[in-house]
C-alpha cells in the first residue's frame, strides 16, 4: 500500500504547526499548499482554520479559492476540514453576518449559548452513530464559540452537548469535517486521522 500524501491548505494567518506536526507523527507525506490547482489535484486535502469566519472567507475569495473548494466538496474526494475550516462549509455564520460561506453544508453556524463559558475550550464528549466510517465516541478537544446546530442534513452527524446539541463532526464518503481539533485530541484524535487516511485501524 502506498503512503498517503496530505495537502494542508493555508487558509490565512492560521497557525498550522499543530496540524503539520500531527501528520508528521503519522509518517505520511505532507505539504502546505496555497493555490487552486493543488486543491483539486491533491489526494488528501486538509482545510484547517483559526480566526474569524468573515476574514477567512474574504482571504479565500481574494485568492480565488472559493470555487475550487466548492468543487472539491462536490466531487467527493478525500477532505478533512477542522474547526473554522468546518464552519466555512456552512452558508453563513452568526460570527460574521453578511459573509457568505462555501455553502456546501445546509444550515447556519450559530453562537454557543452563554449558559457556559464561551469560547468553549476543552475536552467534550463526541457522540457518534453506527453509520460513521471514521468517527467513534470519545473525548475531543474543542476551542470554539460557534458551531452548526444539530439539524444538518445530508451528512452523517456526530454531536456534542453544550447547553444544546451541536455538530461535533460529520462525514460523507471520504469527507470528514470536525468542529474539534483531531490534531490536539490525544490518541483518540490520532486514531481518527489514521482511519481517515486508511492507515489500517479499526
Amino acid at each position, binding site marked *: 500500500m502506498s503512503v498517503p500524501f496530505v495537502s494542508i491548505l493555508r487558509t490565512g494567518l492560521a497557525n498550522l504547526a499543530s496540524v503539520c506536526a*500531527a501528520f508528521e507523527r503519522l509518517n505520511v507525506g505532507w505539504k502546505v499548499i496555497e493555490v487552486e490547482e493543488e486543491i483539486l489535484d491533491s489526494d488528501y486535502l486538509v482545510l484547517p482554520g483559526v480566526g474569524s469566519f468573515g476574514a477567512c472567507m474574504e482571504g479565500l475569495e481574494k485568492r480565488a479559492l472559493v470555487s475550487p473548494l466548492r468543487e472539491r466538496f462536490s466531487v467527493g474526494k478525500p477532505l478533512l476540514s477542522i474547526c473554522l475550516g468546518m464552519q466555512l462549509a456552512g452558508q453563513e455564520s452568526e460570527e460574521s453576518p453578511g459573509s457568505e460561506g462555501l455553502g456546501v453544508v445546509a444550515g447556519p453556524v450559530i453562537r454557543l449559548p*452563554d449558559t457556559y463559558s464561551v469560547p468553549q*475550550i476543552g475536552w467534550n464528549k463526541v457522540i457518534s452513530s453506527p453509520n460513521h466510517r471514521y468517527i467513534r465516541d470519545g473525548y475531543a478537544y474543542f476551542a470554539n464559540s460557534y458551531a452548526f446546530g444539530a439539524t444538518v442534513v445530508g451528512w452523517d452527524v456526530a454531536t456534542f452537548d453544550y447547553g444544546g446539541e451541536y455538530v461535533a463532526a460529520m462525514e460523507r464518503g471520504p469527507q470528514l469535517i470536525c468542529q474539534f481539533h483531531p490534531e490536539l485530541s490525544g490518541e483518540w484524535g490520532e486514531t481518527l486521522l489514521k482511519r481517515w487516511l486508511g492507515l489500517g485501524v479499526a
Partner: protein
Amino acid sequence: MGRNSFKALARFGGGLMLTTRIIPCLDCRDGRVVKGVQFQNLRDAGNPVELSKAYEKQGADELIILDVSATPEGRGHQVDTVKAVRKRLRIPLTCGGGVRRLEDASRLLDAGADKVSVNTAAVINPLIIDEMAKQFGSQCTILAIDAAWNNDLGSWEVIVRSGTERLPKKATDWAREAQERGCGEILLTSWDRDGTRSGYDLKMLTAIRAVVGIPIIASGGANSPQHMKDAIDVGVDAVLAASIFHDGDYTVDRLKKELRELGGEVRL
C-alpha cells in the same frame, strides 16, 4: 441573579459534558524545566519534551510552558523548546512568559503553541490583547493575571513583573476589560496562595467568575483533588497545578480518578 452566577450554578448543577481541564505547568529557564521534578522512570526530568510526553501519557488535558528565563538570551531557547515539544505532543500547548510584542506571540504560535498567554506586557499596553485576538483569534489569546488581596483597595490588586510590582488596579476590572478587548481565557494566579498548598483563592475566583463569561483557569495553591473540586464548584473551567504533580504526590490520572469520585467531570 447575574448571568455569571447562573453560569457557576449551571456547571455545578451538572449536565455539562465539557470536562474540567487538568493542566500541569512547566516553568522553563534557558530551555530546561526548573523546580525539581520527582518522576519515576524519567531519564531526564529537566527535559521539557520528556516531561510533556509523560504528562500526556498520564492524562493531562493541556500543558502550559512558562518561560521564566531572566535574560533575553535565555528566552531564545523557548522557541526551540516549543518546537521540540510540539513534535511529539498530541494535546494542546499553551505558552507564555516574556511575551512583549505581537511578534513574540506569533513566533510561539509558529513554533507550535496553540495558545499564548500575555501578562505584564498587556498591563503596560492593553492593545496587545486586541491585536492578538484580531490576528490569531480569541481562543489563542490568554491573559495571565497575577493578583493578591489588598485591604485598602477592598479587592484583589494586579501584580506584575513577576511579583516585584503591585498596581492600584483591581483584578476584576482588568479581567472584564480583557474580555472586552477580545481575550479568550483568563489564567488567574493567586499570589496569596501560590506555593502555600492551602487551596485556590475561592473568593477571588468567585469574584472574577462574576464579571467574565470566558473560561477561567485557576492557579496557585492546589494540593489535593478536593481543592480542585472546590474551584470547579465556583465555576472555573480548568485547574492548573505544578508542584502536586512535579513532586510526585499525584499522577494526573490518579488525581482525576479521585476528582471524579468527588463528583468532578474529567476525561478519563
